[in-house]
């Protein structure tokens, strides 16, 4: 790892000016569980590391019934998963955040880091997408909002321009009769990386008989986490049923563009998209009806 | 007479016979007797004069640490097996 300067600003403005001054040669450090690994392997190099863990705006974790949940980009996953409000209102999000890496990794890793690392197999991103989460990005020139669904532009690539910093992610307030579920498939039972990840979110109609709204997002089957628009749309207005879910699963399989690599084959991934989409929808349905799905991971 | 089990790939030298008897008080002496009866046996087992490193000598079911110097009895039997170590 090449030598670098280290700064730990407490003010957002200070962080932004540091990032702007060094341009491409500066990197923001939150948990570091991806950044330090890639720097150690020479995949990323920086002259200046800006530790953003002391900046107030990036450390907020507050829930408001009307505004929803605001997750600071530097809030460690363990703090998010331990929040009673997050557990009660966003169990679908906890499904994803509570299985990233290990206990030790989750003490440091952040949603901001997971987003900026932009791995196609990231666990948090499909879950954030189906929850309709929005990123708040700041730079010296000001701030802008970017839906999580459009934040990643390719493996390890995001919309962030030079001098821009991801400040927080806002998750809309939970809607009644709605539920979400995230499942991933890994060979080991823990401490592994998704071969395929699927998040599903369902909102039922007034009488709980039909699906008012649905979103399905896929991980590890395209250059970026993917919102499977047609698959979600196919469920709107239908009665929740195995057949409806199977149809949506097939549509999700069609939009997936998996590759073969050391973690899995394309055929395996395409098959798993079908299986996990169906299971995630069933879990989301149970939560929309106020029940808890069985704990088994994919 | 000592009974020597002939490894299969050497039976071309012994007319296809799997077991052969030969006199001797040590494995080396037995080998000399075998060489006399079936020329080429020694060079196969001991390329360049030393027992090939992947082979071990077994006398009466016991690996012989002295290799070719191992004494043999009247009714002994001799085999050549893979030299095994371990992990």
């Amino acid at each position, binding site marked *: 790892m090449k030598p670098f300067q280290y700064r730990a600003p407490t003010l957002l403005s200070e962080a932004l000016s540091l990032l702007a001054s060094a341009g491409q040669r500066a990197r923001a450090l939150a948990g570091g569980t991806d950044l330090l690994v890639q720097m150690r392997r020479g995949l990323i190099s920086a002259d200046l590391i800006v530790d953003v863990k002391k900046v107030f705006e990036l450390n907020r974790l507050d829930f408001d019934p009307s505004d929803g949940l605001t997750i600071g980009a530097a809030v460690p996953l363990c703090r998010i998963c331990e929040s009673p409000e997050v557990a009660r209102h966003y169990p679908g999000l906890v499904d994803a955040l509570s299985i990233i890496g290990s206990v030790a990794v989750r003490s440091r890793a952040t949603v901001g880091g997971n987003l900026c690392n932009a791995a196609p197999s990231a666990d948090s991103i499909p879950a954030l997408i189906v929850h309709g989460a929005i990123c708040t990005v700041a730079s010296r020139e000001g701030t802008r909002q970017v839906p999580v669904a459009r934040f990643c532009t390719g493996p390890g690539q995001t919309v962030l321009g030079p001098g821009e910093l991801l400040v927080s992610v806002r998750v809309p307030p939970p809607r009644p009769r709605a539920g979400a579920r995230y499942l991933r498939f890994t*060979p080991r039972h823990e401490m592994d990386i998704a071969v395929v990840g699927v998040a599903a979110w369902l909102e039922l109609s007034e009488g709980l008989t039909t699906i008012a709204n649905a979103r399905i997002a896929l991980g590890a089957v395209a250059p970026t986490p993917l919102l499977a628009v047609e698959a979600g749309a196919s469920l709107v207005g239908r009665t929740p049923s195995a057949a409806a879910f199977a149809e949506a699963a097939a549509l999700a399989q069609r939009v997936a563009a998996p590759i073969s690599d050391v973690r899995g*084959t394309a055929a395996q991934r395409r098959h798993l998209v079908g299986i996990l989409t169906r299971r995630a929808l069933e879990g989301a349905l149970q939560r929309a009806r106020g029940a808890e799905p069985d704990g088994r991971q994919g | 007479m000592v009974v020597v089990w002939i490894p299969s*790939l050497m039976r071309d030298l012994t007319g296809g016979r*799997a077991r052969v008897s030969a006199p001797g008080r040590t494995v080396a002496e037995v080998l000399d007797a075998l060489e006399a009866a079936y020329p080429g046996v020694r060079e196969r087992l001991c390329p360049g004069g030393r027992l090939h490193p*992947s082979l071990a000598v077994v006398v009466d079911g016991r690996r012989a640490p002295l290799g070719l110097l191992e004494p043999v009895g009247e009714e002994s039997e001799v085999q050549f097996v893979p030299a095994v170590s*371990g992990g």
Partner: protein
Amino acid sequence: MSTPRDERKPVTDEPVSLRVIGTRPPLYGAVDKVLGRAVFGADVSLPELLHGKVLRSPHAHARILSVDTRRAEGYPGVHAVVTARDLPEGAGEQFERDNTLAGDKVLYVGHPIAAIAAESPHIAEEALALIDVQYEVLPPVLDVRRAMQADAPLLHETLRTWSLAGQAASPSNVAEHLQHVKGDPEQGFAEADVIVERSFTTTMVHQGYIEPHASTALWHPDGSLTVWTCTQGAFPVREHLSSLLDLPMARIRVVPTEIGGGFGGKASSYVDVVAALLARKAGRPVKVVMGRDEVLKATGPTPGTFIRVRMGARRDGRIVAAEAELCYEAGAYPGSSVGSGADTIFACYDIPNARVDGYDVVVNKPKTSSYRAPGATPAVFAVEQVVDELAERLGIDPLDFRLLNCAREGTRRVSGQPYPRVGFAEVLQAAKAHPHYSAPLGGPNRGRGIAFGYWGNWAGQSCCTISVNADGTVSLLTGSVDVSGALTGIAMQAAEELGLELRQVQARVADTASIGYTDVSAGSRTTFGTGLAAIEAARDVIAQMRARAARLWGVPVETVSYDRVVFTTSVDPTKRLSFRELAAQLSATGGPVMGRGNVDGDVLRRGGAPGLHIADVELDPETGKVTVLRYTAVQDVGRAVHPGNVEGQIKGGVAQGIGWALYEGCFYGEDGQLLNPTLLDNKLPTAMDIPVVEPVIVEVPDPVHPYGVRGAGETPIVPVAGAIANALYRITGRRMERLPMTPAYVLERMGVI
């Protein structure tokens, strides 16, 4: 002095009343390990210490045209740069030299080319990038069968296939062809009513020890060398250093540190010579610590294999013929474990007619080394599925079928070597009687599989000394590195002989300057082989103590005896001295007493350790994911010196076997790059992936050891993949012909994807 070697008293079957052997004392060194005080390889530090890093080949197969280190040598903070040119001319065996620092060719990604010693590991790493190496890249060959073809790229122009049929003429990647033929296979297969033939492919697997290799070298003003290294064998490292540095052994001291797991992978030396070369050139001590990616790319995993097995049996259940072809990856240089694979594949069975062909094949991957019963696991994975299929086709219970055909005392192996007494049948009967074998499976998509495995025991050479202290305690020294509690097992055997409690025995591992030659701790030999040396040393102590008592009492030594409680003389029954009381008289009766044991265990007709494993697995038919629900491992260990250690070896061996069966492998791309050089993608099982393994110890004493001890540490890994494969067959109706049995592979075998 000590009793002549061949008068070992055979152990009778009825249990001798033992005071220490069979108990479960805490292990030597455990307190330091839980305190974090134990000194492992990378924990060594010295004043003026420099840090070494190795430059490794990015190509799997290339000729080295030039290596220019001038820029690196000038980099601030760099103190020394070495390449193959720094190895003394013509010293040591050529392949060993080339695998230490590449000569004219690199043969695998990660092949060491040069090394740098600098003020910090970071500076050394930066300076590595300044070494300019020019390559002529050559096409690599990675698949073992492809490498065997005549038109395959050749790794070594000079390599000819050796076999007992003579030396082949033209160069080849096949370094050796071995063959065993027993009886008349053609005739046997003609008699068979049922014949099953299958081929299997297993991937290269790494031992996965959590501690990376580390070595620290220090040259002394008189030109002698001390090396601290985490190794399974300090003496083999000393030989390696002596050979490659052209330095007499008496000028080298190798100090074995605590070892963070080896499993055979630390029986070879990788960075000791490099550390020594750097330290000599820099004039300061140098520590070289490997990174995990270096460990996975450039240290010896166990070979990937192609195995074809064909077996025939009669309707009455007798196996009448068997045939196997084993092609093992040796890696960049000859010397895979195909020999022990061929020796083990049919080892559990009494088969009248058999042929085994083994091929040791070089490929553009790191030189393979041992991994716990080297060569046996892939062979048993193959043969136990064919045996299972034969039993099914004959309609015989799989355990009964194995009982019908298992080897017994006197059975001849394919090599012709007859078996001494080994508990093959006893293990099968114990497994059959175990509740697990008949328990209900309790759910859909579940299957139970069994597999029968064996590992012969290597004995090797060991030294041990025992000094008697004036207070009646003793201090034991041995050259055997303490791999997982073996030192405690050795000390327990000495304590038993001396009639002492274990806490009266101080036991330590000595460096190569303080004890006689002792082979590597491997081959399930340590508790057996070094235990013999400890027993011999203890008997030597007793002999000397009897002489002192005789001198004290003025009686002939023949009249003095010791019943492990007191010394007495038949001349005068009132004279009695405890060990402690006599020890206090040593200085007055002739000075210190030191017992010596130096043993070559191979002298003894050693039997090995068979194991029968029962595995219950559950399959998710939609995703192909396999969960091991219940696991029972029945094994003959001869005598469990420390039952806790033996159970620990069985639990650990099964855990590694589960990793080998379901999760692990070194996967290479077409260009020879290792695709998974991290512990994220080279997936060792976690605490969530291993069930509670129930060890069942069967004790059929090995007659050649005073306490009946057999080697037990390696057998536990051998049957695991076969048992899980047979369990998956019961769920899917498909035989598993590949390792690892990943979810994707299981789905493919089921025709789902």
